[in-house]
């Protein structure tokens, strides 16, 4: 007696759970189908926010619904969803826009970002966010993930079992065919709607910028040579000697430009040397008399003759008559 009451209790509990499950399942199923159908009919795109740069307006994990609008209807302050050059969907607020032709070039900025997006988006249309539901994106993310797909598969299997077992218990054959037809219709409608209403994941991409200034850079100031001197070497009784010009090095990395200028201003010699000495040759055979010249030495970084020292050292010297050598003066 008590045993059969207990058994009846079990049956009642099982039926309660089955009924609840079926009612909730049917309600959710209808809701999903209607949503999918509405999305397909009205051209709505669900957007799942995978990051939070639109915070606090739209937080990470929110599900937003967007509707495609032509470029001409987009205004500053709208939250729009566009695809960037890398093919990633970005949903940010319109900071400014610049029409060109039938398109507009959008400058977008996340509410939580300090700077606008690095790239601008030329679009002829964009998905404008109508409203958003906090956290709902997590549910979509879960439902469309591996676990969700697995659970969905299990659900299909369970329902299939319920359909089959209930038909065994009392359903007529005709009823089974009707149900199979209904199932097929719902499947087609559902899949068709799903294609149109697939949730797009969107980055409300975070951006950040950092600036860096350096210390100062100072270009080299080429130091000049110092302490120029002249002494005569070689020669016999006032002829055939050589004016030997010496100076103090400006540093290990420098070479020297030596110029010899006639007292009348004519440039006579222009040469370079890595040494700190210069033996003045006498190229002045054309000058029969003795000529006074100025020898000027400037330094430059070896290999970069264009950078001459501003300071120089100079020493006067002379050529001997008939080109018979050079001498100091």
């Amino acid at each position, binding site marked *: 007696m008590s045993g059969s009451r207990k058994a009846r209790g079990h049956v009642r509990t099982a039926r309660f759970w089955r009924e609840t499950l*079926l009612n909730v*399942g*049917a309600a*959710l*199923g209808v*809701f999903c189908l209607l949503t*999918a*159908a509405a999305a397909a009919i009205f051209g709505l795109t669900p957007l799942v*926010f*995978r*990051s*939070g740069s639109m915070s606090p307006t739209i937080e990470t994990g929110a599900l937003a619904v967007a509707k495609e609008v032509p470029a001409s209807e987009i205004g500053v302050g709208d939250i729009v969803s566009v695809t960037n050059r890398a093919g*990633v969907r970005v949903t940010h607020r319109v900071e400014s826009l610049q029409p060109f032709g039938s398109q507009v070039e959008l400058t977008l900025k996340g509410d*939580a970002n300090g*700077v606008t*997006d*690095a790239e601008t988006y030329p679009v002829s249309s964009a998905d404008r966010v109508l409203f958003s539901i906090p956290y709902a*994106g997590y549910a*979509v993310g879960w439902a*469309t*993930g591996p676990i*969700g*797909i697995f659970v969905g598969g299990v*659900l299909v299997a369970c*329902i299939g079992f*319920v359909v089959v077992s209930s*038909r065994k*218990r*009392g359903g007529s054959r005709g009823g089974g065919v009707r*149900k199979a037809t209904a199932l097929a219709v*719902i499947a087609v409608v*559902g899949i068709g*709607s799903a*294609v149109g*209403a*697939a*949730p797009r*994941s969107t980055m409300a*991409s*975070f*951006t950040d*910028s*950092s600036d*860096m*200034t350096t*210390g*100062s*850079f*100072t*270009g*080299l*100031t*080429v130091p000049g040579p110092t302490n120029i001197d002249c002494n005569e070497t070689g020669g016999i009784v006032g002829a055939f000697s050589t004016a030997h010009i010496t100076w103090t090095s400006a540093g290990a*990395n420098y070479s020297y430009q030596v110029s010899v200028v006639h007292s009348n201003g004519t440039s006579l010699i222009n040469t370079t040397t890595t040494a700190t000495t210069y033996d003045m040759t006498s190229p002045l055979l054309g000058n029969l008399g003795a000529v006074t010249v100025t020898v000027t030495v400037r330094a430059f*970084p*070896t*290999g*970069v003759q*264009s*950078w001459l020292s501003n300071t120089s050292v100079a020493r006067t010297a002379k050529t001997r008559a008939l080109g018979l050598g050079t001498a100091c003066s």
Partner: protein
Amino acid sequence: MSSHRDTGRVPVRAVLSLGIVLGFGATSTMAYWADEAVMTSGSFTGGAMDLRLNTSNAQGTDIGYANTAITWGGTSATALSPGERKAFSLSVNNVGNPPFTYTATVAKGASPAYGFADSALTVQFYAGTVTADTTYPQTDSCSGAALGTEQSIDGTTKSLLTTAQRVEAGSSQAVCVVVGVASGAGNTNQGKVGSLSFAFAATQAVS
């Protein structure tokens, strides 16, 4: 009899329940054929993004960072002449939550007043660390490959990275900054002073 009616309704409700799978779950598989990336689960990113240079706590969002370690020429012994270049280490840190890709640009610095002629200084980014050259002429190099082309500093902003560089959350990238004097720089640049201003822009990467 009531129980018989209940069982009669079971298949209808069961079939309607399938709508969950069809209208919701099936989107994931169907949508892969669509023209763009669609929802895949498990990659939600909250928190904040933060690109910081050199140290993890010295400078954050939008705060100017005066990196006085990047300098040369305080004395004539360390100053550069045309054709010389000096390398500096810089680390780009991602101390935020999401991974990011960043771009970098360089322009003339505001202080001290930029005295070099246009195109006298050059800047190039490399990967890796500094390989110093102690001989004259000084031409430092870097252990890694070039990240961009050598840019001449003039009145415009120059891009230093050929492709945006990705840095994972909590990671950093070693960048080797090479600053030099162009070999064709004119004599008027002797003794001139200037600094450089770098801008790093990070955008959240899609994982």
